[in-house]
């Protein structure tokens, strides 16, 4: 068995393993074993008064959607051009900048939503009718 044959068999085994793994992921997504329901949704707010529990997901996020589409388009084009060229193609800095703008907007948006939802508790010490000091969180 010469070296070329060994490398050929190795490549075939590697290709089969990677493709099987990729197909398994796709199959699990198809069967909902890997759930994508919340792919675009923001985390749900706390349950409203009277509601038993909070909804599982909030409304869809524009920045998440944008980031998803950008990632898919750039990854798809990279894959396509790499196959066409027969080698890995270079990624120019401004393409990374494009992804950075999209990702940056997503992060800023998430940061702002998070800071708005997490309001700090304020402790106020009050005296009740009997003159006892009571600390209340507001």
């Amino acid at each position, binding site marked *: 068995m010469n070296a070329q044959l060994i490398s050929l068999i190795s490549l075939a085994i590697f290709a089969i393993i990677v493709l099987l793994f990729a197909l398994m992921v796709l199959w699990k997504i198809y069967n909902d074993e890997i759930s994508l329901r919340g792919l675009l949704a923001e985390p749900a707010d706390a349950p409203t008064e009277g509601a038993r529990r909070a909804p599982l997901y909030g409304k869809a996020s524009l920045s998440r959607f944008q980031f998803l589409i*950008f990632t898919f388009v750039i990854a798809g084009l990279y894959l396509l051009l790499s196959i066409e060229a027969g080698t890995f193609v270079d990624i120019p800095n401004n393409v990374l900048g494009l992804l950075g703008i*999209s990702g940056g907007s997503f992060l800023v948006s998430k940061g702002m939503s998070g800071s708005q939802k997490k309001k700090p508790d304020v402790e106020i010490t009050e005296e009740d009718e009997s003159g006892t000091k009571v600390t209340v969180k507001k």
Partner: protein
Amino acid sequence: MTTIASLFAAGLLIWFALLTVLIVMRVLNGDIFAAGMLLQNESDSGVAPERVLAMASFPAVIIGYAMVALHADVSTAHPSLPDVPETLINLLTGGNAVYLAGKIARGN
């Protein structure tokens, strides 16, 4: 060797295409929640104009860049994804800046 590599490349492309189709179908069927993207809050009755602007600008950037990339010549010694035109970067930056400004102004 070339045959195996070609099959592997074709397999990867098919996998990527199937994943894309799966996600698109799930969004269209409502299995992936995609409602309320143009609203600031779930309780809002009308859409936020800055979100409409952002929603209109980024597909234009994506389509513009995809058109440039699909016509790129990769038969050179150092193949590369094409540069993004300055106009598209400005368009995306502007759209996202307006979206974030609106989010800040509305306090959420």
